[in-house]
């Protein structure tokens, strides 16, 4: 009813192979882009832009990176944050070495450094796979974290051991550093994410993406039909790490504004892995769902205790127990722990109910819309 392909005829192969073959899809994506590029920067508050939207976009990019490696190529990686860190630190070194070149160029270039490191740690992937590879990437994670602390050259021998983002401009508008407005930072991040998602979409729908998926589904069979395993896996590592690197550079320069080694620790890697799982392995749109869910959910939980506490106080007042103190008040530490429990339980719940993640739920919803008002 709402979402039907009836009457939409295709007269060329290009139209048939398009990413969004349906008119409704194209309208929807245009509407989303319009909201993201025009409505949100104009209407959303600074808090929403800098603590909700920018992190979600950065994490979406990181989740796409991990999805390319884990979802499309079937190589588990626990070193995502390490590769993001490489991007962040590379960008910092680049912009302090060549301050004349625009920061946007540096952010894009820093991806290549991350890609190089990623390929290096991807080298064992031919001989090992599955959990063994996960441990190998864990080696990357711990080694890189150690480098970020011990190699003082990376943060220009700063006494604090942290990197401070310098002020840089684009077309005369300040986009990094403490004086940059959330709107400017948001728009730059959004441009990066949109362009890179478009590139990733073309990659995974094309020949390379099919090679990756063939390797994921059965590597020996893929080898027999003429796919060079080593090159394909290393390419996946390179592309994935490139995306990680750009995400890391965006994270340091346009979101956090300053960063230390702890921003890229193992928990960050796990967080991104959860985003990919909950969003849906092997789905680009799932990466956005996962990032939104994992980042947005705790924010909701953080807002919640005020309401709950107010409610408890109200009930307390209603029950008329003025003499007794309120025993049970949710404080922020409890919320943080509850958040851990919720996230853990949710992961298990999702794996049981829908192992293919939010992306599959989205597909089911689309199908329901297509056949509505009939059940099937």
């Amino acid at each position, binding site marked *: 009813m709402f979402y039907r392909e009836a009457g939409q005829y295709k007269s060329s192969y290009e139209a048939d192979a398009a990413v969004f073959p349906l008119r409704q899809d194209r309208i929807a994506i245009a509407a989303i882009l319009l909201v993201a590029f025009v409505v949100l920067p104009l209407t959303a508050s600074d808090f929403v832009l800098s603590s909700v939207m920018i992190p979600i976009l950065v994490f979406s990019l990181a989740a796409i990176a991990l999805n390319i490696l884990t979802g499309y190529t079937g190589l588990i990686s626990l070193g995502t944050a390490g590769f993001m860190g490489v991007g962040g630190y590379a960008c910092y070194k680049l912009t302090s070495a060549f301050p004349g070149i625009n920061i946007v160029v540096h952010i894009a270039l820093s991806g290549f450094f991350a890609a190089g490191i990623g390929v290096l740690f991807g080298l*064992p992937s031919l001989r090992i796979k*599955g959990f063994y590879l996960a441990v190998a990437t*864990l080696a990357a994670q711990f080694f890189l*974290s*150690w480098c970020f602390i011990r190699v003082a050259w990376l943060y220009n021998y700063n006494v604090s051991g942290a990197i401070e983002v310098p002020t840089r401009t684009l077309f005369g508008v300040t986009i990094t550093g403490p004086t940059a407005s959330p709107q400017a930072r948001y728009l730059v991040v959004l441009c990066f994410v949109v362009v890179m998602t478009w590139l990733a979409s073309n990659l995974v729908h094309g020949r390379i993406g099919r090679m990756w998926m063939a390797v994921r589904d059965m590597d020996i069979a893929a080898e027999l039909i003429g796919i060079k395993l080593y090159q394909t896996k290393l390419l996946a590592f390179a592309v994935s790490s490139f995306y990680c690197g750009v995400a890391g550079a965006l994270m340091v320069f346009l979101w956090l504004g300053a960063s230390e080694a702890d921003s890229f620790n193992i928990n960050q890697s*796990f967080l991104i892995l959860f985003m990919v*799982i909950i969003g849906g392995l092997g789905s680009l749109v799932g990466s956005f769902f996962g990032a939104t869910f994992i980042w947005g959910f705790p924010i909701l939980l953080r807002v919640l205790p005020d309401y709950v506490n107010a409610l408890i106080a109200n009930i307390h007042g209603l029950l008329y127990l003025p003499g007794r103190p309120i025993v049970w008040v949710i404080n922020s530490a409890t919320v943080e722990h509850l958040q851990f429990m919720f996230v853990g339980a949710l992961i*298990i719940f999702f794996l049981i109910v829908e192992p293919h993640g939010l992306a599959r739920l989205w597909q089911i919803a689309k199908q329901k819309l297509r056949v509505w008002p009939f059940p099937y």
Partner: protein
Amino acid sequence: MDLLYSIFIDPFVQMVQVPDLFVQTLWEGLVSGVLYALIALGFVLIFKASGVFNFAQGIMVVFAALTLIGLYTLLGRWGLGSGHFAAFVALALTIAVMYAVAFGVERLMLRPLVNQPDIILFMATFGLTYFLIGLGEIVFGGEPKIMIAEQLYLPKGSIDFKILGGLVSLQKIDIAAAVIASVMVATLAVFFQKTRIGRALRAVADSHKAALSVGISLEQIWVIVWFAAGIVALATGIMWGARSNVSFALQIIALKALPVLILGGFTSIPGAIVGGVIIGVGEKIGEFYWGPLLGSGIESWLAYVIALVFLLFRPQGLFGERIIERI
């Protein structure tokens, strides 16, 4: 030249010149190796018997240790005193709690996920890890706690040996840990090879469907094996807690069991021990003699790099079963 000297010659000269320090480092490595091995043992148990790579083993160690301490203080508050008796009551209760955890995991997590791909089960244990971290923090609080080692008749203090012209001191608790680890490994090996349940466990690991079809109760086996892993976790928690405090940081240290597993092979119980000792000794020696060259702290990643290099030559580990792939 100077650099080459300091990498390839100087550390060995130091080892020979100050042998007592070398022996001390070796012992430290051995002990931390045993503790890694204990954690790895929990991983191996579950992997061997259900094919699940249990990421939550580390937090189970912390959780078990915290439960023990928490119950002990609770018993003290209830007036059961704070002596040996209360400690052992707490121990028994903790074992019951670990059984409850195993039961809950089987009922709520594994049963609905039966016959799913390995990766899904692996991810589910991630979820379990986060759940247990949150639960542990809410119930027991985040601050480090002191293990009730003395009440459990664990030895304290150290024995000093005068050898090689120096003094080598061995902590008694470390010796106890080594003994307990060996006893546990021996028991588990016998359990796996000789008993009915052990054979059933190995059958389940090979194939869920085949095991079901010959009449092995998957549910029962899973509860048993998670319970066994819980007890191993408890022992590890007590031992580790007696050396330092019990805190959630231990959970990250538990990740060190992963390189141990790779060295030893995922399915080998003796492999876990040998791998643990190799990693522990390699790490401590590396940190002590080569660490200063790189600016120290290399302990955090050396184990992984050792494992990584090892993987390139023997992907199935020291004692692992050879992986044969068919289309």
